[in-house]
Every structure is written in structure tokens, then in C-alpha cells.
């Protein structure tokens, strides 16, 4: 964070100064971090309700007291969008929960979402004074963020952010995931005539098709979308820019700038024998069937594979989402197959912990090398190879090395491959002048998110290749500022 003066100014407001005096720092640091209320592990593994139940008001008030309101709030530097963290936590401490939500929404379009899915343990909470200096559990920033956002939503007094008068300048947002939603919110606030184009039939992108209900209820995303609508953002589903209409078509309709947040669409497979057998899915397919298409509900037409043993290949959040979904769909054995050890897993600690509590099996240091199908082409077995860890590789994690002669067969009814995604090629392939990397991501200016085509800006996974909701949102906001500068410059010239 280059400039903390804004935060410092807020910190020296009278009420903050007084509040700090109400309790000694020493006393604050002696308080224990609260624990999230959760659904019982056995019960929740049989339903799709949210696992985390949130904090009570009392819990939030107590936890907010732990925050020392540091003169140098290192937590903020750990947040990709620079949320005024002590600012909102102190509002909670004085019981101004709606005020806390307001502070969050200054910088974060979707606090109820981020409070649930952000890897706080790697970001703000990892830079918290408690973590860094006291070697104690950090302030539960994520839980408090969620608390404030949920409080506001349930209060019936959800503030609709003020928007500038419509300036009539049309801007197109491509993709309605976290990057696109964040960009649309800022642009509509600046006064632009914003339309979000979405390829699927529902708004929300990965928040809808990817992240399961038990981790992020759709209702929460829908409330945020409804608010954007109230702010004046228009949405068009079933519309693929570059296919349904070209960029030139939209330019002819008066769109003066574009933000591309089309995500990392293409699932990767391992290219091993038998991988195209029936019953082997990408995690994208498995989760889309269940989350977006509601395949597990008998009233819906889309089918999905059920089975006693479901193996999920990979160790990321998407792998955890898939394996925990499989358990909820009735798998007796829902198994993670991961080629490194649990220490190297990219998934959030909380997700791994929840999975373990729910009875997910972890076969770490294993890797599939072949799938064997029955006579109908349906996968029935997988050949697994045991691995050991070698020296750290480019990612800094210890490299998995196959152990010779360690192969064995395991019976499976279905397999979900969750080993990463590649950028969606639909947009880059429809624009010849657009500069892309060899991985297919769009090249942008890091400060403005502007691409090699002047009126096209981009952010989120289509630029990063695969990141988090909060980073995508940060990109969306940065791009909105970039688009604003670009268009104001253009208006001045004319």
C-alpha cells in the first residue's frame, strides 16, 4: 500500500481515538480468537446447506475488540483490494454494524462473498499484527467481514451505493463473474451506461456454476446482483461477445469501452489412457451439472453420475468442492487423489479441514496413470502410482517423483479431474489484434488493465490464468478506473 494517509486520517477520528482507550492493548491481546459456528460434520455431509453458520452479534463484538487498531495496519497490505480493515472492525466494536458494511463496500463490491471464499489465512490474516508479531491466531477478519455483510443483508436496510447521473456513455462488461461484477459496480457509480453480457443462462459466473451452495449460497450472490440492477447495471444472459455479436457490432451500437472478464474456462486433462471413458469428468463439468443445472435434484432434467466410490484428482479448492459435493450426493467413499503431500496442497486450510471432518479420504502422494473401463466404456478402475517428494520446483513446492513399481489398481465408479484450467479462447480467438501470452491469457497494462486494443480492458482469470475471487474483483475495479480515465480523456479530445 503506497499511501496509507487515507487510513491514518480515518484512524485519528475522535471516536476511534476514544475507542482505543476503552480497553488496554494488553487486555485485547489476551482474548482468545472466536471459532466459526458450523453445521455438524456428519449432518452437513448429507445436505447442501452452508457449512459455516456465521458469528452471533455477541461473538462479533468480542472478536472486534481483539483488533488493536494498529497505527501501521499491516493487514491492509495483505488485502488485494486494500479494504480499510481496522476501519470496519472498529465500527463493529461500537455496534455500528451497518456502518461496518459501508466501510467494506467502499472498496469491496461483494463483501458477503469475499467473507466466505477469500483465502484470508494467506492474505489479511497472514499480515495481521497477531500473526506477524505476537505469533498468535490473527483477528478473524474474514469472519467479521462476513458478519457485517450478512448483518446488512438481513437488516432489510441494505444501502444501495450512490451513483453519478447517467452520462450516456455505453460500456460493455463481458462475463458476469467476480471481475465483471466488480467492474460493473464501479462503472455504474461513475455514471456509465453499463451492460453485462453473460454466456450462460445465469448471472454470477464461477460464483454460480463453480462454488457449491454449501460454501457460497446462491441467494447471497443473487442479492448482490439485484443491488447492481438497482444501481442501473443491465444484464444480458445467453450472449457471447465475439459470437452472438462481434466487438465491431457492439461498437456500432455505441459501446465505447469493453471489460473482458471471461474467466479461465477450459478444463485441463492429464492425457492418460482411458481418460475419455464414461464417468470421468472435469471438475467444471461435475460442478456445473450439480450447481448450475441442479442435476442432483430429480425435478431437473440434467443427469449426473452417482456412485459408491468417487475419486477427485487434484488438491485445489475446486478439487475440495468436487469431492465434498460427491460426498453430499451419497458417495460412500469420496477420495482426494493428490500427487504431493497435504502440506503442498493449494486448497484453503479451512476447506481441507472441513473435508477431513466430513469423512473425505485423502490419498496424498498418489497419481493416476491409467483408467480402465468396463465393456460399456464406463470407468471401473484406475491405476495409481505412488509418489515421493523431491527437491522444490519452480512453484516452490517439493516436486512429486513417481516411485517405480508402486502401481496398483483401485475400483472407482466415477472420477473428477481437477488439475487446473486454461483461459477461455473464445474472446482472444475472435480478435486478431489482441495481444495474448503463449498460455492464451490477455496481455494488459498492470496499472490500467488496458489490452493491446485501446478500448478493451481485461482482468481476472483471463489475464491471470487462474486466481481467486478477490484478485478478480481487484482487477475489475482497477479496470473500471482505467476505463474511466480512458473515456474521460476521449471525451476531452472530442
Amino acid at each position, binding site marked *: 500500500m503506497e499511501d496509507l494517509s487515507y487510513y491514518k486520517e480515518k484512524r485519528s477520528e475522535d471516536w476511534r481515538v476514544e475507542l482505543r482507550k476503552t480497553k488496554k492493548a494488553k487486555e485485547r491481546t489476551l482474548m482468545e480468537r472466536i471459532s466459526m459456528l458450523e453445521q455438524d460434520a456428519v449432518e452437513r455431509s448429507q445436505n447442501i446447506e452452508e457449512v459455516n453458520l456465521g458469528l452471533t452479534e455477541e461473538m462479533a463484538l468480542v472478536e472486534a475488540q481483539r483488533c488493536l487498531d494498529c497505527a501501521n495496519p499491516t493487514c491492509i497490505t495483505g488485502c488485494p483490494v486494500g479494504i480499510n480493515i481496522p476501519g470496519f472492525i472498529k465500527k463493529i466494536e461500537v455496534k455500528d454494524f451497518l456502518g461496518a458494511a459501508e466501510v467494506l463496500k467502499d472498496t469491496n463490491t461483494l463483501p458477503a462473498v469475499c467473507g466466505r471464499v477469500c483465502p484470508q489465512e494467506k492474505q489479511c490474516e497472514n499480515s495481521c499484527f497477531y500473526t506477524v508479531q505476537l505469533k498468535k491466531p490473527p483477528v478473524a477478519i474474514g469472519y467479521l467481514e462476513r458478519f457485517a455483510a450478512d448483518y446488512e443483508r438481513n437488516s432489510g436496510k441494505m444501502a444501495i451505493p450512490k451513483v453519478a447521473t447517467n452520462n450516456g456513455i455505453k460500456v460493455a462488461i463481458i462475463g458476469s463473474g467476480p471481475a465483471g461484477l466488480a467492474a460493473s459496480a464501479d462503472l455504474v457509480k461513475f455514471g456509465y451506461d453499463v451492460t453485462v453480457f453473460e*454466456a*450462460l*443462462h445465469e448471472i454470477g459466473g464461477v460464483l454460480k*456454476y463453480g462454488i457449491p451452495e454449501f460454501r457460497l449460497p446462491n441467494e447471497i450472490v443473487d442479492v448482490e446482483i439485484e443491488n447492481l440492477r438497482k444501481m442501473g447495471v443491465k444484464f444480458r*444472459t*445467453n*450472449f*457471447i461477445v465475439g*459470437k*452472438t*455479436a*462481434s466487438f465491431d*457490432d457492439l461498437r456500432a451500437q455505441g459501446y465505447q469501452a469493453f471489460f473482458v472478464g471471461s474467466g479461465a*474456462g*477450459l*478444463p485441463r*486433462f492429464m*492425457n492418460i489412457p482411458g*481418460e*475419455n471413458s*464414461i*464417468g470421468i*469428468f*472435469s471438475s*467444471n*463439468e461435475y460442478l*456445473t*451439472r450439480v450447481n448450475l*443445472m441442479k442435476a442432483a435434484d430429480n*425435478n*431437473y*432434467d*440434467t*443427469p449426473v453420475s452417482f456412485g459408491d466410490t468417487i475419486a477427485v484428482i487434484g488438491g485445489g479448492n475446486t478439487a475440495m468442492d468436487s469431492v465434498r459435493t460427491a460426498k453430499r450426493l451419497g458417495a460412500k467413499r469420496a477420495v482426494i487423489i493428490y500427487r504431493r503431500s497435504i502440506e503442498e496442497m493449494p486448497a484453503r486450510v479451512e476447506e481441507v479441514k472441513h473435508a477431513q471432518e466430513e469423512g473425505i479420504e485423502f490419498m496424498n502422494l498418489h497419481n493416476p496413470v491409467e483408467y480402465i473401463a468396463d465393456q*460399456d*466404456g464406463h470407468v471401473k478402475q484406475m491405476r495409481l502410482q505412488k509418489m515421493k517428494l523431491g527437491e522444490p520446483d519452480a512453484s516452490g513446492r517439493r516436486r512429486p517423483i513417481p516411485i517405480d513399481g508402486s502401481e496398483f489398481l483401485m475400483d472407482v465408479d466415477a472420477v473428477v479431474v481437477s488439475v487446473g484450467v486454461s483461459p*477461455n*479462447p*473464445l474472446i482472444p480467438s475472435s480478435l486478431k489484434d489482441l495481444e495474448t501470452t503463449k498460455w492464451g491469457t490477455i496481455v494488459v497494462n498492470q496499472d490500467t488493465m488496458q489490452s493491446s486494443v485501446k478500448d478493451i480492458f481485461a482482468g481476472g482469470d483471463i489475464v491471470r490464468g487462474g486466481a481467486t475471487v478477490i484478485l478478480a474483483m481487484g482487477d475489475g475495479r482497477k479496470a473500471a478506473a482505467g476505463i474511466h480515465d480512458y473515456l474521460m480523456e476521449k471525451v476531452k479530445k472530442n
Partner: protein
Amino acid sequence: MYKIIEKEFFSEKVVKLVLEAADIAKSRKAGHFVIVRVDEKGERIPLTIADSDIERGTITLVIQVVGVTSAKLANLNVGDEILDVVGPLGKATHIENFGTVLAAGGGVGVAPLYPIVKALKEAGNRVITVLAARTKDLIILEDEMRKYSDEVIVMTDDGSYGKKGLVTMGMEEVIEREKVDFSMIIGPAIMMKFGALTTKKYNIPTEVSLNTIMVDGTGMCGACRVSVGGKTQFVCVDGPEFDAHQVDFDEMLMRLNAYKKEETEAYEKYLALQQA
């Protein structure tokens, strides 16, 4: 919402729907498909666009009733609306003047073949079209095809119309008679498999249009994957048209049956409900 403005039964199980979809009508080319979701509970299925009318802002789909979704579509009437239609998807057909083209269509596959035949004819090709079906009632779009073909050969399995025999017989008749520079085959997977084997025997460059199971249709899920030349390809974004001689049809046929059991059960349940 996408309103149906025309409906025509070609046969008991094959129906033509003309629906409002102005953007798609304007941007689609031969070979493109759409993904359709009939209603709130519906699944997403791919359907190749058979025709479009830019002025009316409509696209034409031809649907064969094989399960719940296709039955739901066939039960819709003029004035009804389809909840979701997105497209045009896939790569458009590569059209050029090859010389003589042999176009072979089987069953409802004749519908997606029609715009390709039209485009090939307009590009200056000599187009010979083989239309094949089990029986006379299932031969569709014959007049339209005749309009854009130099010659049309009709084949029926039971001999009730045209010549008796399989599509490959009609194809071989042409190949043995004159030089064919390019062939396009669209129909049921099994028909395309044997059609491809036929043209391979004569080394005729051949393309097929694959209709696999899809969910999103934009490259996101990989449900549609097929092996082409030993490499996994996604029909939705890499296709739907591929070099017929490189496609692993046996794998494709197998994958088309992925949900056979669920589909049959759901369809029986649906039919029972319709009766009740």
C-alpha cells in the same frame, strides 16, 4: 425468451421450429450450432442451426424426438417461448470451391447439412447430395436440397422411396462414377462412421459434424470431448466439424451413451406424465 413463430412436423418424430433470435440469425454461418434450454428445469442441449432469416430475425432448428428435452421442444406450439437459446457456437464450416462435392445426410442430420450444401453451391461447387433415412417418411428437406444440389440421390433402408439401401451405397455410386474432391457427411454417429470409412477407401478429404453431449457449449466443461487423430478435442470449440478420417467414432458412440439409462428412465417418466 425466444418465441416460436412457425412449427412443422416433417414426420411423427421430426419437427421444424422457427424461432425469434435476431442476434443469432444475423451472426450465424453454416455449421454453427446453438445451445437450448427449454424451461427452468431443462438441460442444455446443442442443436445445429438449419437455416436463418435475417429480415425476420429468426433461426430454424430441426429436432428429432429421442428423449425428454427433444419431446418438450416438439410439444411447444407457435407463440410459446423457449427459455434460453445461446449461439452461434462452434466454428463455421470452411467453405471454398473444391470442385465436386459429395454431401451425405442421414436422418435428421440432413437439417444441419442443408446450410452447408447451400453455401457450397453458392461457392461454385458441383454438389451431389445423398439423402438417406430408414423409410420414406423420414426423408426431410428434399425440395430445399434439390434447389442447391446438381443432383440428389435418395436412399431408404426399406426401399419405400428412392433407392433401397444404406447411405454408403449412394455415396459409392457417385464416387465410382466421377471424381469427388470433397465430402461432407452429417447424420447419426454410426452413419458418419461408415460414411467416413467409405470415402477413406477412395482417399476423398471428408468432414463430419459431430453432435455430442454438451453442457455449456463454450469450452468450459469438456463433456463433448472426442479423440481426433489421437488427440482429445472439444467438439464445442474445436469443432463441431472434424476430419472424418481422424475421428474415433467408436469412442464417440460410447460416450453418447453416457447417460443412456438415466435418459431412458426420464423419458419413460415423462411419457407416463404426458399420458396422465
